[in-house]
């Protein structure tokens, strides 16, 4: 499956001009500041807004081209809005059933029971929407969307209206979706943090134009893009659990560039895990330091350097082909004689497990 979308929208004060080719699998995040056109693009893809002249093909099917416009209720998608928007006159169970009842039996791939248990809302079924908390409402809205067994799930900042605590409550459910269900997701967000946790593929949008598209680990570490210069800049590394150390209560994870050790977790051996390596937590040495408290050291080569302000540089490294960022002072970079292709050792002070 593949998604081809071309839209030219001119609404006077706002323009959107995109020509996208998105993978029809995993989570594709559309990232950009507010007003960059993320929601407009998503609504155009869903058909909630009809912009003449647009062209949209999803998995070989034409949803829009020329005079042909498939109305939203005939597109096999589901949409989670920023606010849960549950139907106030129906209880949770009947909200969940609303879409399900309108999908032919032959197309049922996600059962109601599965949607309910994935989002952990068994205990809410008889409740009225107004009696639910914000987080519960959004979970019901996500389950309601899943229950139509969509071929494409669209989420428009589903966490934006929730506070930090509720975000942490819901994020794991969203992460679980694309692992448990094989449904491609288009996820709109303005938060690089959320995207780092969820996305496989990234579209950077700014002022209605696509700045960059590509796999998340590429885009996050590209020195010509603003994300790498952010104070929270980080690289994403996909690894898998290779062992647990019971004595010291640690877990080892392997990736193409070596091994990373984190505090013991409950992931089973062999299971995939996503790691976040913050640029400011990665330091560089020319020789392998053996007498150090840092556990995570691996070989890498310098793949690019860009200055950040007067005192600091961001170094892009490749460790076994996997891009990693390191933020060090310009002085250190000069003293180490860093240049393209130079082999170094990357020392990682702290690693966050995102899975």
């Amino acid at each position, binding site marked *: 499956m593949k998604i081809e979308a071309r839209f030219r929208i001119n609404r006077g004060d706002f323009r959107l001009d995109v020509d996208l080719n998105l993978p029809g699998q995993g989570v594709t995040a559309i990232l950009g500041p507010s007003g960059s056109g993320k929601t407009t693009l998503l609504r155009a893809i869903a058909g909630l807004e009809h912009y003449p002249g647009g062209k949209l093909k999803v998995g070989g099917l034409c949803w829009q081209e020329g005079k042909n416009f498939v109305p939203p209720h005939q597109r096999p998608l589901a949409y989670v809005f920023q606010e849960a928007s*549950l139907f106030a006159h129906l209880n949770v169970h009947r909200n969940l059933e609303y*879409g399900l009842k309108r999908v032919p039996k032959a197309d049922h791939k996600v059962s109601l029971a599965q949607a309910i248990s994935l989002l952990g809302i068994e205990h809410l079924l008889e409740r009225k929407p107004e009696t639910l908390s914000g987080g519960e409402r959004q979970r019901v809205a996500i389950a309601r969307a899943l229950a139509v067994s969509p071929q494409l799930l669209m989420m428009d900042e589903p966490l934006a209206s929730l506070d930090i605590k509720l975000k942490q409550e819901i994020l794991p459910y969203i992460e679980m979706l694309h692992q448990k269900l094989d449904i491609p997701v288009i996820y709109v967000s303005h938060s690089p943090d959320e995207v780092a946790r969820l996305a496989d593929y990234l579209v950077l949008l700014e002022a209605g134009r696509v700045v960059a598209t590509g796999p998340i680990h590429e885009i996050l570490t590209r020195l010509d893009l603003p994300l790498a210069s952010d104070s929270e800049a980080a690289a994403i590394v996909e690894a898998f659990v290779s062992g647990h150390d019971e004595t010291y209560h640690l877990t080892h994870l392997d990736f193409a560039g070596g091994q990373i050790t984190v505090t013991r977790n409950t992931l089973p051996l062999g299971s995939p895990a996503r790691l976040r390596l913050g640029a400011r937590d990665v330091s560089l040495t020319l020789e392998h330091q053996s007498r150090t408290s840092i556990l995570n050291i691996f070989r890498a080569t310098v793949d690019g350097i860009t200055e950040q302000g007067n005192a600091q540089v961001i170094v892009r490294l490749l460790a076994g082909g996997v891009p990693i960022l390191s933020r060090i002072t310009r002085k250190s970079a000069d003293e180490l004689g860093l240049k393209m292709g130079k082999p170094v050792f990357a020392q990682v002070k702290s690693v966050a497990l995102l899975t």
Partner: protein
Amino acid sequence: MLTEADLSAIVVTLKLATLTTLILLLLGTPLAWWMSRTRWRFKFLLEAVIALPLVLPPTVLGFYLLVALGPKGPVGALMETLGARPLAFTFTGLVIGSVIYSMPFVVQPLQDAFTAVGRRPLEVAATLRASPLDRFFTIAIPLALPGFFTASVLGFAHTIGEFGVVLMIGGNIPGETQVLSIAIYDHVEAMEYAHAHWLSGVLLLLSFFMLLAVYALNHRFRVLRP
């Protein structure tokens, strides 16, 4: 106590109000829906026309209706060429007059209710495979239900209270076009204050209890709103 003529005036009145309300709900629902959705530039023109009976003296409306419906008016002439009786001084004429006269009392609450529903629930329903008609019946109408209740009661109550329009186009035919408000006027003219008291009392209580129901139920409905 109530005479037989009084009772038949009550029956005519209730019949007129019920019929008018039903017709107005049938006509007013699609009209109000359309007005709550459309981005048409000249919507305000239509809104002004519908609201006209709110400010127009009923006798003026009644006069124009009489001219239109009478044998020499455009509608009346058309009826005559079709071999039908002119509508002036008939119950049908009365219904037509009442529908126009009570229109804003039904259309405005419905339009407000549909507007309050907003676009979002309907968009959600669209992404859940509901067709436009499906969305209208399963989302818009249930969410606008308090508005339907208000519209029905106001349309009904307002029709019961009309006087000027009825006087102009309905005349005063007992059992056919004589409604409560006219009967009361007749009693007062004839100095039969006791009869006028009885009928006025019926009208007062009826109106009061209907409004009581609107306010009580609207309060309950509001709790249901998100």
